[in-house]
């Protein structure tokens, strides 16, 4: 069996064409090694990115990402194709992260959604005292964002990553994490609020340093 690494990767918000995905799925279901290799090529970076942000231990994240593709390989016959391949893979990834967290208690235990620290101070999102379009994502700011994501509760972080990073629809997220759509929206709002606060604090402090 040769599952050679290809060169095609999907960027964020980039999806394979529906007919291409259908062909890929058909190949995978036939146990075509080349098709499954392509599936891994397409999604390995994104799945790893998601898992790495859910599980902060890099080494463990690598293992879990491998486990995602192994589980997918084993469960291909049971995949009915109602959801997209991407949604299905992220559902597996999410479930594995949750299982791992419950086993190892690596995630912070969520209490009242951990929102006391995240949104005590209500941030007025309408004003937008920082313009993300103009912000150059330097390494420092990237660390701030990654840190903010990492400090969120698992519930908020999941919704934020699946919606804003992986571009999944509310309904898809609701089905993945098994909560109502309204809850997904509430969590997304709180997560964004927390992130905006952290970025706002960083930008304010760096502008004071410049002065």
């Amino acid at each position: 069996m040769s599952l050679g690494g290809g060169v095609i990767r999907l960027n964020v918000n980039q999806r394979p064409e529906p007919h291409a995905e259908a062909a890929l799925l058909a190949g995978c279901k036939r146990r075509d090694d080349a098709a499954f290799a392509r599936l891994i090529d397409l999604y390995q970076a994104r799945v790893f990115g998601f898992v790495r942000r859910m599980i902060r231990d890099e080494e463990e994240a690598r293992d879990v990402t491998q486990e995602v593709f192994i589980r997918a390989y084993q469960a291909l016959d049971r995949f009915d194709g109602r959801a997209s391949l991407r949604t299905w893979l992220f559902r597996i990834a999410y479930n594995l992260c949750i299982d791992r967290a419950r086993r190892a208690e690596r995630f912070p235990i969520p209490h009242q959604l951990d929102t006391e620290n995240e949104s005590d101070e209500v941030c007025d999102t309408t004003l937008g005292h920082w313009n993300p379009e103009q912000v150059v994502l330097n390494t420092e700011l990237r660390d701030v964002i990654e840190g903010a994501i990492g400090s969120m509760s698992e519930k908020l972080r999941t919704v934020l990553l699946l919606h804003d990073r992986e571009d999944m629809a509310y309904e898809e997220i609701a089905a993945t994490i098994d909560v109502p759509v309204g809850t997904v929206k509430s969590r997304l709002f709180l997560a964004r609020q927390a992130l905006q606060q952290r970025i706002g604090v960083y930008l304010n402090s760096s502008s004071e340093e410049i002065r």
Partner: protein
Amino acid sequence: MNQWNEKARKELPMDMEEMLALDEALNQSESVKSVLSSLTDEEPSLAWRSELNEKIASIKPRRPKLALWVPISASAIAAATLAIVLFIPRNTERPAEVLSQSDRSVEALILRSHREAEAATVLGVASPTPTRNTGSQVFDWSKLEQS
């Protein structure tokens, strides 16, 4: 705003108006999405990929032994049958007919000759005996009517 915000925090059900306010707030915070999209994803290493390939190869469903032996033994049997059919000498000549005394009579020989000729015709190895042209003219019936 505070009321729906509080409900959002406690994950309580919202009425229509509160849901609309939440949707509006989400629309206004869409810029966060572009920030998150600009984060880069690290590619797993080739060693990682190679390890994954090995793991997948190890769980790949294997054919049961019986399923392997059935086509092998079927092929062997078919080959043996073919060899027997092709290489074992067969006596294709017809056994010489032993003619009894009574078969040597003239009538029997004529009858036998006729049967062989008939069989040869049926098999297509001999054409039926052509009708001889006797040279006699065909009778013209029109002349008969005229007379």
